[in-house]
């Protein structure tokens, strides 16, 4: 199987996994992981293994998410929830600056406190891919985003191979999952059955190998490794949603006037949920606020979205005033111009925008509609919409 040679893998019992959190704490990490809150599996600080969503899973379809009980005690038996690690690496609201005026002098106050060193527990393959996309966007150029950089640096990543998929997942189309490939310190595969609950663990970095040595005593036997691989294969075969990405750039660039954009605009609420939940969407706006005395000011950075009117506001008005132009901008950027700009797709196939769209708009379906009608019009001897 890809990358992971059997010899590198060790086996952890449930008790040994408990130690993982302790070991990470001892190394000075704040551990962020999955937990059940407000009817969903969200990411927040976890102190012990019992904080994890043992025995819970998520049921997802377009515009719908429900927590469900599993008939086992799996810790990672859910897929992806409403939040992504962007919550920590590229936060929704962050204060960039504060200033005070004393008479004629202006004092810039010491800004952000340094974020804690964090370990992420339970990062999925598509999420690793999303982090890599944001790394490219926010760190990979001449202009590095210092807010992101300070949070990203020194993150310890415990990834999890998916052993089940949701109907909204399409990582296989985007080449990002369900097996993690790189960008992690440790990767777990959970094996849970009537009389066992164990984890195959592989190290992806020196730091990961050190932690792993502190935890595990046993190497994973070959049959256990095979079971782990089979479980991930099963997840892959569960994935039914597809996005055909063949020449997707050309497809979308040659279809700016496709009638499908009007069709989706009738359904789209321009509410921006898709962009907020997307683990790669990175746009922000900056707001300056001052107090009434004019002696204190703050500058905040907040998540923004191409679905707002203000986003494309230039002198005289909003360039993208219609919902149609906003949805088209979002999807065309995500799937096509992102490739020109950053050398990869902006979509990792996590399916969040599908589940969390209040009206269940499905990006894979929108691509299909454009592709199918374009192919048929080509067949009838006429190219562009």
């Amino acid at each position, binding site marked *: 199987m890809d990358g992971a040679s059997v010899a590198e893998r060790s086996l952890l019992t449930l008790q040994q996994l408990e130690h993982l959190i302790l070991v990470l704490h001892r190394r000075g990490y704040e551990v962020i992981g999955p937990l059940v809150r*407000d009817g969903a599996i969200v990411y927040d600080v976890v102190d012990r293994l019992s904080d994890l969503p043992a025995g819970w899973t998520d049921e997802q379809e377009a515009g719908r998410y429900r927590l469900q009980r599993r008939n086992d005690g799996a810790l990672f038996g859910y897929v992806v929830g409403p939040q992504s690690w962007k919550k920590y690496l590229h936060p929704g*609201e962050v204060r960039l600056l504060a200033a005070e005026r004393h008479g004629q002098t202006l004092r810039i106050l010491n800004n952000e406190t340094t974020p804690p060193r964090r370990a992420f527990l339970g990062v999925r393959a598509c999420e690793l891919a999303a982090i890599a996309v944001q790394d490219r966007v926010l760190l990979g150029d001449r202009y590095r985003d210092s807010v992101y950089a300070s949070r990203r640096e020194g993150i310890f990543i415990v990834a999890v191979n998916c052993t089940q998929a949701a109907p909204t997942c399409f990582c296989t189309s985007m080449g990002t999952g369900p097996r993690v490939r790189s960008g992690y310190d440790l990767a777990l595969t959970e094996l849970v059955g009537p009389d066992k609950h164990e984890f195959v663990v592989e190290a992806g970095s020196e730091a990961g190998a050190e932690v792993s040595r502190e935890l595990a005593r046993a190497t994973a036997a070959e049959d256990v490794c095979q079971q782990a691989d089979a479980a991930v294969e099963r997840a892959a075969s569960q994935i039914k949603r597809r996005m055909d990405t063949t020449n997707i750039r050309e497809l979308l660039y040659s279809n700016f006037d496709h009638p499908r954009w009007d069709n989706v605009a009738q359904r789209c609420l321009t509410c921006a949920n898709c962009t907020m939940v997307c683990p790669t969407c990175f746009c922000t706006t900056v707001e300056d606020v001052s107090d*009434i005395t004019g002696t204190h000011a703050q500058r905040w950075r907040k998540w923004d979205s191409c679905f707002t009117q*203000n986003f494309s506001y230039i002198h005289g008005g909003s360039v993208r005033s219609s*919902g149609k132009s906003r949805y088209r901008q979002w999807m065309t950027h995500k799937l096509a111009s992102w490739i020109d700009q950053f050398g990869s797709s902006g979509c990792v196939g996590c399916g969040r925008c599908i589940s969390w769209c209040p009206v269940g708009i499905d990006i894979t379906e929108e691509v299909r509609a454009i592709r199918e009608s374009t192919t048929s019009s080509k067949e009838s001897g006429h190219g562009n919409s």
Partner: protein
Amino acid sequence: MSSRVKRKPRIAVFKFASCDGCQLSLLDAEDELLAVAGAFDIAYFPEASSTMLRGPYEIGLVEGSITTYHDAQRIQEIRHQCKSLITIGACATAGGIQALRNWKDVDEFIRVVYATPRYIETLKLSTPIAEHVPVNFELRGCPINKHQLIELITATLAGRKPNLPTYSVCIECKRKSNVCIAVAQGVPCLGPVTQAGCGALCPSFNRGCYGCYGPMESPNTESLSSQFRILDQSNADITRAFRGFNAWAWQFRKASEESERA
């Protein structure tokens, strides 16, 4: 240099048909109230002070909707007195909850409710201030958010653009890391078509948005109504959902009338 002491700008607060809740938001801004009093001459604010200085005023805050002949006259005079006229709240901006009468027979109400109907003189409609006079800014909400009010006053004083978003409540929810109750629980929520400003108050407490801040910048009420039907809401439920504090805002009005006809 002039030796004249620079006069502090005058601010005035006027009330029309309303519950006073929005004015109270100003009094409720305890931390900032002294600063407001320091920066302005609170020239006319009957709810707070018996001092009543004559205009003109730099800022006039208007609460309430127009429901009587007398008020329709009064708002004209007030407009002349105020350099910047700012409406505060759903009543002043959209006609308020009392605009529910706009779909009913007001004369019948008067006959049924009042012992001596001939003493009652009222208009058939409850209408927002902007239907009567030009307005410089409309601050949304039922009631308004005191932080937004202070931001608006501060920005007006500083001559800068206020940070008052017109996008959906959903953006506030997501920035707060709220789990969407519409998607995760099937709760009908007006958040996607409602303007931000409350800090996503109701969804943060597991309730669907009631639309207190009125229609957002590009509300697709038709699509949300279809989704409400998927969430098992009847046409009557949908009509009721849009007939809240901002029932008379045209986008919500259209949505409620469409579901009523459906």
